[in-house]
């Protein structure tokens, strides 16, 4: 038995998993139209690779990975590209983003695709396949997976952690996937392990999912026997946010990812189990990410998990669950702790959308009015980052941003534990988001001001230099004139030519000294004003 570590704080919100995890995954019917956003991952959006009017096949790349931190997007079904424009997407901002619209032809015809033998292929080739298959972290952050699976200069990877914790209430998409497709997830893990060559592979699953744990254990046991692998399924205590990357790594390995760094820095790579599944589909079947499992739950008639094509309008997906009940007030994307309001039901399913919750006032009562902070410290006791939210709140509210940074505001993972326990119902996370964005903006402004100052300094230097050059030219001219004058006097009048020449030489020397002095002074002033 592995001894598990604990992270500080955490909360136990009502789980609401049983609503949606009792029924098997249901494949959604083919939608008439899909809307594929080009930004479905962290990093640069994919570059459009089709034109309006193009006929595309299922699995055809329609957006190319653009830069290092990026991933491709693909046509979820065969059809015709009807538009490439801004469309509503599921995003906290509610702002539209560039999407490719495809009218399905109903044939759902696949593009030619083939498996890759990852054991013989070059690791870089395998990673390129993953990038071009649009594999991103399906746990929520959607970080391009091929980047994560590159040990790079960091050297040895000690632990590969698979995240099957699914700690957010209501969501069960990973749970049912592990129950039904454990063997395929483990195939994906094998590919990841092959790329990383870790010393051990730990699969963390919260202990409120006994069926998923059993299914994964059964597969891992036979794989370990057959292939001398050492995949370990580790049930972890159910405690939100135990599925947070840093929290899970701490629980499983006892190590903390240093602030501002990535797990790779401590020799750990962490990926979601659903991501492992897509890795398997991409490498062993040549299929890019064009669908995912999504939980539809809450105030709907038949809560269930569906396998849905990326790009399917979310309103249609809600209909699959029998539609929302009459008293539905709004919809949430993701879980109730970190999810966000869906502002438009036309927004499509993206790779990162793991759950749609129909909310009603009964299920999600409106927040009561906030009271003053009474410094009870329950937020600090609940904070998994061991921050002092009551102090951060004070600093954020008073816009004392230096102090907020000194109290490590940027270590806040916005998990919502502090809000959840606050007896004064203060929207703490909202305050922290506000402070973070204000600080980010101030830093941008500071950088811009710095640049403007540099421009100004350079301009001043240039003007100074031009002035000196002008002075030098004037001095030369004067010397020449004096010499000419002296010559003329010598010729015309009875002045001693020797004296005249001497005078001219002295005059020229004086001018030269003057010019030199001016130059030295200018140089000195330039030195002091040089940007530091």
């Amino acid at each position, binding site marked *: 038995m592995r001894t598990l570590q604990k992270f500080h704080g955490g909360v136990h919100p009502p789980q609401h998993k049983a609503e949606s995890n009792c029924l098997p995954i249901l494949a959604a019917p083919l939608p008439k139209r899909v809307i594929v956003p080009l930004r479905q991952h962290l990093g640069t959006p994919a570059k459009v690779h089709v034109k309006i009017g193009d006929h595309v096949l299922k699995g055809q790349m329609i957006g190319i990975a653009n830069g290092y931190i990026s991933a491709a997007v693909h046509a979820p079904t065969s059809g015709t590209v009807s538009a490439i424009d801004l469309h509503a997407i599921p995003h906290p901002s509610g702002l539209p983003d560039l999407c490719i619209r495809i009218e399905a032809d109903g044939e759902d015809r696949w593009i030619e695709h083939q498996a890759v033998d990852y054991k013989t292929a070059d690791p870089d080739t395998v990673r390129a396949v993953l990038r071009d298959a649009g594999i991103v972290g399906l746990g929520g952050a959607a970080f391009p997976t091929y980047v994560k699976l590159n040990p790079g200069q960091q050297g040895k990877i000690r632990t590969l952690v698979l995240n099957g914790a699914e700690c957010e209430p209501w969501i069960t998409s990973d749970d049912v996937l592990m129950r039904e497709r454990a063997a395929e997830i483990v195939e994906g893990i094998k590919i990841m392990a092959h790329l990383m060559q870790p010393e051990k592979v730990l699969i963390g699953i919260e202990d409120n999912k006994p069926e998923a744990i059993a299914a994964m254990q059964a597969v891992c046991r036979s794989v370990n026997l057959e292939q001398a692998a050492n995949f370990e399924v580790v049930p972890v205590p159910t405690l939100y946010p135990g599925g947070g990357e840093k929290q899970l790594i701490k629980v499983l390995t006892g190590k903390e990812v240093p602030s501002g760094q990535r797990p790779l820095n401590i020799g750990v790579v962490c990926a979601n189990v659903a991501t492992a599944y897509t890795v398997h589909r991409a490498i062993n079947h040549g299929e890019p990410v064009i669908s995912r499992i999504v939980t539809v739950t809450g105030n709907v008639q038949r809560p269930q998990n569906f396998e849905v094509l990326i790009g399917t309008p979310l309103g249609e997906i809600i209909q699959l669950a029998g539609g929302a009940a009459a008293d539905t007030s709004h919809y949430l994307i993701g879980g109730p702790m970190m999810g966000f309001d869906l502002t438009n039901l036309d927004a499509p399913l993206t790779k990162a959308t793991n759950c749609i919750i129909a909310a009603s006032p009964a299920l999600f009562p409106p927040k009561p009015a906030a*009271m003053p902070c*009474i410094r009870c410290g329950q937020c600090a006791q609940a904070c998994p980052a*061991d921050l002092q939210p009551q102090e951060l709140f004070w600093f954020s509210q008073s816009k004392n941003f230096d102090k907020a940074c000194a109290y490590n505001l940027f270590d806040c993972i916005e998990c919502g534990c502090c809000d959840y326990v606050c007896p004064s119902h203060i929207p703490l996370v909202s305050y922290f988001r506000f402070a973070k964005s204000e600080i980010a903006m101030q830093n941008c402004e500071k950088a811009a001001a710095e640049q403007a100052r540099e421009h100004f300094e350079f301009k001043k230097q240039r003007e100074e230099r031009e002035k000196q050059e002008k002075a030098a030219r004037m001095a030369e001219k004067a010397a020449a004139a004096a010499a000419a004058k002296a010559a003329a006097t010598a010729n015309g009048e009875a002045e001693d030519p020797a004296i005249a020449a001497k005078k001219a030489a002295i005059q020229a020397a004086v001018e030269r000294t003057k010019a030199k002095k001016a130059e030295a002074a200018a140089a000195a002033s330039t030195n002091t004003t040089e940007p530091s």
Partner: protein
Amino acid sequence: MSSPHILTAGSKVSTIMLLVLVALLPAIAAYYFFFGPAILISLTLASATALATEAMMLKLRSYPVKFFLADGSAILTGWLLALSIPPLAPWWLIVVGTAFAIIVAKHLYGGLGNNLFNPAMAGFAVLMISFPAIMTHWPTPLMLAQHPVGLAEALRYYFSGALQGVNLDAVTMATPLDTLKTQLSLQHTVGEVKHMPIYGSFGGKGGEVVAAMYLLGGLFLLQQRIITWHTPVSFLVTLALVAAVFNGINPTHYASPMFHLFTGGAMLGAFFIATDYVTAPTTPKGKLIFGTGVGILEYVIRVFGGYPDGVAFSILIMNAAVPLIDAYTQPRVFGHNT
């Protein structure tokens, strides 16, 4: 709305305050049982004054009166003050104390959540300094009383300032702590003094049971996770340790640790006053420092100072240090100095 979209069911400021009030009930019952019904008048007057002054200040500060009045914090302040001062006293004593606590110590410092000093203890300090004579007249335990004061009699005293047939001295006395101090200054030993009838097994007769009830209420608050163990444990352990050292050096002149724990305001202070969220540190280490400081000051003021008990002053002194304590006891943040 932004995340999170759910809150802990039933977690409210008013629930916390209510639970603290509930935790005080066993001690109030014991108080009633051993010292008569006067405490009920005192609590009622304190509650009424607290609510009236709170409402007035909220109105003056243009805050929603009903919303904030319902949080229960004002009543709690009133109760804590009423339990800290002699219950048989002229009506204006508790009124003045409570009014000062709410108006000056709470609202003039910014209201709920913003006050630097514990309002009840600030009220206590004002009364102690302004009316020291009244503040030393505590009711005699009923089992020792010649003239037990009933509810009607207590009410009469509250509003007329006189008792029927007897004067106040006949029904009141100095507290066990005060008596010990006086007797020690008269060259008696602790052992001799403790044989006086007002002393019980650990502390004062009756008073030690009230103290035990505060302890019980405190354990309830711990179990309910309203308070953490840090402050009460560090406070009481420090008080006991310091008492044990002096007691060990000279047992005839210094009372035992148990005596110090179960007399005066030690238990009330440890579980109900030093744990006040607003005026105490929030970090675990800070709470330990705070409790230790209060424990030391409490003993020093009690034994060497001019007042019979030191809870109020030791807490007020430590209150002033809270911002500093918090600033220097920040816990290690996840991922830092790993």
